[in-house]
């Protein structure tokens, strides 16, 4: 799942530094993620994982780090292991 999140971040996050340099729990906003870009990241994640973020998850904290994104996705029923297998 992490790899796909990183891909989405690379495509839509407009981060000044490479996504590869980011740790899983690094603060994405401190790494340069703007609120504008986070909307595009959200749309990218919805498309990639075929999910829809409910209203309750539409807040800053959801997109704070790769870990927080992953846990939001898990809460929406994306299964990390199964999904990783599917993409390998």
């Amino acid at each position, binding site marked *: 799942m992490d790899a796909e999140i990183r891909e989405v971040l690379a495509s839509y996050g407009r981060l000044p530094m490479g996504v590869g340099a980011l740790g899983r729990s690094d603060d994405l*906003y*401190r790494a*340069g993620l703007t*609120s504008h870009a986070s*909307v595009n990241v*959200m749309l990218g994640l919805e498309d990639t994982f075929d999910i829809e973020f409910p209203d309750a998850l*539409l*807040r800053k*904290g959801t997109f704070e780090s790769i870990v927080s994104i992953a846990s939001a996705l898990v809460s929406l029923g994306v299964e990390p292991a199964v999904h990783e297998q599917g993409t390998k």
Partner: protein
Amino acid sequence: MTTITHLNERQFQAPERRVGEQIGADVAGPAADDVDSRSRFPREAIDALREAGMLGALIPVELGGLGLNLESVAESVTDLARHCSSAAMVYAMHQIQVACLVRHGDSDELRAFTRSVATEGLLLASATTELGIGGNVRTSSCAVQREGDRFTLQKQAPVISYGQYADAILATARRAPNSPPNDQVLVVCRKGGFGLEEKSTWDAMGFRGTCSLGFVLTAEGPATDILPVPYGEISSQTMLPVSHILWSSLWFGIASAAADKARRFVQAAARKNPDMTPPNAMRLSELTTVLQQFQDVVFAARARYSEISDNPEKTTSISFAIAMNSLKVSASTLVVDVVQRALLICGMAGYANKSPFTLARLLRDSYGAQLMVNNDRINANNAQLLLVSRGV
């Protein structure tokens, strides 16, 4: 600086919510024309607010403030704005900074500073915009430089309203020289630790007393004057909603002042000819409908925020950001609508500069509302947010 020693006595004598109205009528109103024509700082109104302890209105009692809630402060902003938009704007902008300090200045040093804002009646200004960032206050190009336990900062600010009259300026900057543009902090630059070099003058259509000159701000101070939480959080949880709530309350005050003139104009006409309802009365009725709509929008937004202001989960949600952005756009448009309707009702008496019904200053002030944090920018932000919104 005046030390306020008689707060409790005053509080006892006059319910705080009337203080704004009293200072508006007795001090700010009589000076408003001079403030406007000379584009000068509304010093007497701000001094009177300081004397009454109102600069510390939002600060908890245990820190020396009046411990009022945002709704009461918003009411006093409306009251002041009925008499002098500029004095009300200076007061509102100060309170926005105070609200940020109260909610996010959670360290011993910043609490001590907050206490001195209340007890000494310090006036706070803000430096959020910067040359070269295109008006987007969520990015900075300047950065805080830390050396040991001290910081230095230099910022090219196209506007610092009443900067030269402020006792402290809260400035945004990047966290460090290697931080990306949106990794911002809010820094308290205290008098004695900052210098201002004037870069532009302020001679504008309206809000002439806010003295919104451009400056190069140079500041230094203890690193503890950097607020501990990221500016992004301060902005979404406090600065943005409080700004839009206080500004819309202010614009509502301008609109009510204009509506009041229109009402008195129509009533004067009715007294001259009691046999028939003056034709303008119909326009007054239409104006009142818009004014009430305006009031409802403003009051609902205050209630909405006060309900969730302690819940960061909710204040950082997209639907709340959309709601606060919409408030700003509605209120800043409605104020022009109401003043223009009042102008049509008062006719030449409203158009004339020297007449009891003149609307010149109110009309000029009302047009500023759509430009300060331009509505196009806000609508563009909402357009982006609506791509993922799930509705209200």
